[in-house]
């Protein structure tokens, strides 16, 4: 079972790596970091602040674009191109193993991608500061939170990919990402409202993914430490949310007729 999941994950990773679009996005990300560097040079005394803000935001945005772009085709493309026939038809591969393998493969791609972009980011930071500071350690926490965001986004894209077209999957996933970014505002609105509206907004706020909790870019840019409790809670939240969404994807995919 583990072996089959690993094999599917590796193939998904290999496919992404051989996909030229991925390389283009990496090049774009490198360009963004270079741009941040230039901006940092022309910003008086706040070079680090500008560089950290732009660098981390670029890594997050490019990662999210890749996550959505690849995630929405993970299953639907396989069904459309009928490549999964030879995997699921006459091999001892269960459908859930296929889903989990695909998701892990995409996560591996995103982690490697974010890692490469981070190397460029830290190189730019070193160039700017000439040495690393103790507060730069918090940047690793911000990067870790970005990866946790990827975990949730890939599971959402994958779930939509099991039952709808790539276009609709993109719209749904991107919409949820946008709503999730403002989840705290939704919660605040719920607290202000009353009756049914309060129940509805509060319910939605808990049901929809909360991406706001992962955004610590502003704090780490100002060298504010990230509490250990937040790291633990965010890790648990991402893990549980992604598990729930992936389980839904498995349930949907299990019932599907692969025409």
């Amino acid at each position, binding site marked *: 079972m583990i072996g089959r999941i690993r094999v599917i994950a590796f193939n998904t990773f290999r*496919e992404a790596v051989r996909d030229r679009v991925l390389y283009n996005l990496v090049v774009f990300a490198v360009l963004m970091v270079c741009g941040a560097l230039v901006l940092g040079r022309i910003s008086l005394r706040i070079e680090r602040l500008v560089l950290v803000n732009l660098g981390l935001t670029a890594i997050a945005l490019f990662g999210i674009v890749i996550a959505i772009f690849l995630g929405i085709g993970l299953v639907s493309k396989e069904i459309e191109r*009928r490549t999964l*026939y*030879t995997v699921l038809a*006459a091999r*001892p591969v269960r459908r859930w193993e296929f889903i989990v393998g695909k998701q892990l493969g995409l996560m591996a791609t995103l982690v490697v991608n974010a890692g490469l972009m981070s190397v460029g980011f830290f190189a730019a930071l070193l160039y700017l500061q000439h040495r690393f500071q103790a507060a730069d350690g918090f940047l690793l926490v911000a990067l870790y939170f970005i990866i946790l965001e990827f975990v949730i986004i890939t599971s959402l894209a994958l779930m939509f990919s099991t039952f709808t077209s790539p276009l609709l999957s993109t719209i749904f996933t991107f919409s949820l990402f946008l709503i999730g970014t403002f989840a705290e505002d939704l919660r605040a609105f719920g607290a202000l409202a009353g009756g049914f509206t309060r129940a509805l907004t509060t319910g939605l706020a808990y049901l929809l993914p909360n991406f706001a909790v992962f955004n610590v870019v502003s704090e780490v840019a100002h060298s504010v430490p990230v509490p250990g409790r937040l790291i633990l809670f965010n890790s648990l939240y991402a893990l549980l949310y992604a598990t729930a969404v992936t389980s839904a994807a498995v349930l949907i995919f299990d019932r599907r*007729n692969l025409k």
Partner: protein
Amino acid sequence: MVAIETFKLAKSYQVGFWRQRRREALCPLTLAVEQGEVFGYLGPNGAGKTTTLKLLMGLIHPTSGSAAILGCPLTDPRMKAQIGFCPEQPYFYDHLSARELLVYLAALSGVPAADRQRRAEAVLRRVGIAEHAGLQLRKFSKGMLQRVGIAQAIIHEPKVIFLDEPMSGLDPIGRREVRDLIQTLKDEGKTIFFSTHILSDAETLCDRVAVLNHGQLRGIGVVADLVREVSGRVEVIWEGAAASDAIIGLAAEMHSSGAIFRAVLPEPMLERAVDSIRRSGCRLISLTPVRATLEDFFLQRLEREVETGSTVVSGEGAS
């Protein structure tokens, strides 16, 4: 021992905007295929052949009925490790080379890591594309992909092999090679279930065939038994035009080339036809019994359906 068994296996789809109409893709199908048999599954396009294969492969779920392969339910992973499947017009991950694809699929089938590379090379040799092992599949022609499809179906040495239109996209040499390969697999004791609408292939290879149309089983049995139903015709060749009108009157199909005439007519009409030829002073050249083909059987069944407007003809003996 039974290798493949279906019991009232059926599939229907809800169609239309409100999904209120029902379309029967496969009417309750009961059949059994013995181990070591080459079983042909025949029918025109849209007959329900691919639906049956997808049901057996677990790609779609039956509306009713059940099926078993090697005595196991269709969802049993242990059974799945012992079957191979080549879909119609197979598509593969085109970022992989043929060798990489086969190693990948062998890994999923549970082939030990040490054996994967060797087996991939061996099956690529067997299907005649060993020299293209390192080429990315996006550069493969349709015929070459078909061969890769067959290679991936046998790389894990399955006991039962399902082939959906295996000759599709192949040139005459390729078709002959695949026919030889199926024959070799049969000699190795494999059970082969293959769908085709190329009847001559089925006639050459199959121990038994099933004929399907509009999702319903129209006939099942040994090829010789099926074609016997439509045999009993004689080809008559003679020289001289004088007898032609009389022979057309015997409901014969007739062709002429210069002064040479050829007619195919039912056996009971033979005496009268020969008399007519002799009486007309024509020269009888030959009388040859016509060997009926599976195609004749197939066409006759379809024609009978059109004439009677019937849709139900039971399968004579399911195993």
